[in-house]
């Protein structure tokens, strides 16, 4: 990867474009994500850090790796703000992934509340990374609210169903100037690669690794797939023939003047 190809989030620079999500947490997964997937950002649910084992969890994060606390468990903006502040008090830093869900079955994000929380937390100096359902209007509102990135879901959390929202994520990539980090639902390295080819800035995944047969191997596969997709995006994809062959005589061939 080119050394100058950096992922910049809220003024912070990263070289890795794999971010470990927080769904299924274990020390082995952390190790694999950092060592084999090259993760420089690790998500951690604040509600998970807020227990007697927090010291062992927080102290395990190596220096040089950025902790991304999330607000999972929040059902509205006010709760997300309280959880984010608690994370800061616990020493989790200024990054925050804003997750607000009012549906315990599908765990879909509530865009309206997420916009409110982003506005409030950005004002308090947090580097806000809102998780959202890929809707262009909501994404624009998040930009105006002070988000540092936009994190649309590819498919329901934990579903491993891949880029189910492909066309809507493509619109966000085209229209929003902030990094678009594809979050949730990525089940295979090939899906991560496809998202990166489209121009996603990074991939967040967890379940795909956590539920694989070999954490280390899958982490490494994700790293390679993300790098491949990024290179393809930077190189510019070749033209894809839509229907049949391309006519050798251009239709504009009749133009003489």
């Amino acid at each position, binding site marked *: 990867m080119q050394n100058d190809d950096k992922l910049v989030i809220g003024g912070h620079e990263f070289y890795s474009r794999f971010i470990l999500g927080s*769904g*299924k*947490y*274990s020390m082995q997964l952390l190790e694999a994500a950092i060592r084999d997937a090259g993760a420089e950002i690790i998500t951690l*649910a*604040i*509600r*998970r850090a*807020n*227990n*007697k*084992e927090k010291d062992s969890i927080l102290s395990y994060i190596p220096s040089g790796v950025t902790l991304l606390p999330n607000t999972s*468990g*929040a*059902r509205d903006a006010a*709760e997300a703000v*309280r*959880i984010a502040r*608690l994370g800061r008090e616990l020493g989790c830093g200024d990054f925050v992934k804003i997750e607000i*869900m*009012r*549906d*315990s*079955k*599908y*765990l879909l994000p509530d865009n309206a509340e997420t916009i409110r929380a982003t506005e409030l937390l950005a004002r308090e100096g947090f580097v806000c990374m809102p998780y959202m359902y890929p809707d262009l209007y909501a994404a624009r509102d998040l930009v105006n609210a002070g988000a540092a990135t936009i994190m649309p879901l590819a498919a329901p959390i*934990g*579903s*491993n169903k891949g880029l189910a929202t492909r066309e809507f994520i493509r619109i966000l990539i085209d229209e929003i100037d902030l990094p678009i980090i594809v979050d949730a639902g990525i089940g295979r390295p090939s899906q991560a690669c496809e998202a990166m080819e489209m121009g996603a800035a990074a991939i967040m995944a967890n*379940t795909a690794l*956590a*539920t694989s047969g070999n954490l280390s191997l899958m982490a490494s596969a994700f790293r390679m797939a993300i790098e491949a997709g990024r290179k393809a995006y930077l190189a510019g994809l070749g033209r894809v023939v839509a229907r049949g062959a391309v006519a050798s005589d251009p239709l504009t061939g009749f133009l003489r003047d």
Partner: protein
Amino acid sequence: MKNHYLFDSESLSQAIIEKKHRLENDPSARKNIMDYLPGMERIDSDVCGDVMEQVSRFDYARYTERDVREALLSENCSIDDFMALLSPAAEPYLEAMCWKAQAITGRYFGNTVYLFTPLYIANYCENYCVYCGFNCYNQIRRVKLTMAQIQHEMEIIAGQNIEEILLLTGESHVQSSITYIGEACKLARKYFRMVGLEVYPVNTDDYRFLHECGADYVTVFQETYDTVQYEALHLCGHKRVWPYRFDAQERALRGGMRGVGFSALLGLSDFRKDALAGALHVYYLQRKYPHAEMSLSCPRLRPIVNNSRINPQDVHERQLCQILCAYRIFLPFVGITVSSREKASFRNGIVKIAATKVSASVSTGVGDHESKYTGKNSEQAQGDEQFEINDSRSMAEMRRDIAREGLQPVLNDYLYV
């Protein structure tokens, strides 16, 4: 073995025995279970109707192996698929159900298993439920802990690195008032991250008060959804009012609780219908309150003090496993709790397949944690147990055993907001 619930404790007076026998033998001496008592809140809800309509049409004998195979192949388990999985036709497919349930549990919960412990703070009860050790006609040692005694118990429990506690009482509004339970919740918040309640059903305002005191989860066992059997087993007291109990979780959610737990006590009636009803209770309430966290448990009948013959009848471990797998396949997102009513070997196995939460360091008695944990004779009064437990592992033993199974014990991932 058929259950023989009825017995007379020796020290009951003749007048009390006569009243007890009248309740047992003369249905006209008992109140209508559908009639609310004064002060009980009625809420406008269609959940009960939806659940019971489905249960009434559940003829599990009509399902075939083909229905079961289709249910197992289906990506989204419908109510009809779920019924097939609960039917006798699914019994030969138990292994396949386990594999499917295990995959779903892994996708939704990873390899985590949550741990908690119950704390009984009083065992006075005003109900006569014939299968329960706390029933008002059972002569047992009754105790209501003072706040100082509760604090002492909590200190001992917290010393075992337990972060989630479930507070329980017998169902006595007089002895265990809402204020008393609320004070216990406030104390519990000082020692534990997460406080749940399993107490008698109350009105919405009372749930709101208890939530403000620090509780965020409410579990109410419906015992059986079979109203005919319910009538024959719950002979007097507030608990006899079946619909008020049914709506308890909905009132709790309206009162601000984050999550609610459900269960039928398997062995009291037709277990397949009760298992169906419990899951549908979750299903319909979740559609109405999508933000709420829901959990299910599957307790089986156990022997009680003074009646060792009580047993879960036709609900053997295979049937219990079938129900738990069907629950997981139908409701992938719900927490499933398996209590110490079950043996260690069953609990070790089921946490790898469908269950997401187990209790540890359990006592179903009152005020006896110190003696049970340390072997030291406690100076404080102790009350008898609600039922006999089947797995007495401590928190440390449970954590060790879960880790040995390749799973990750989790003490808590909750914030009170």
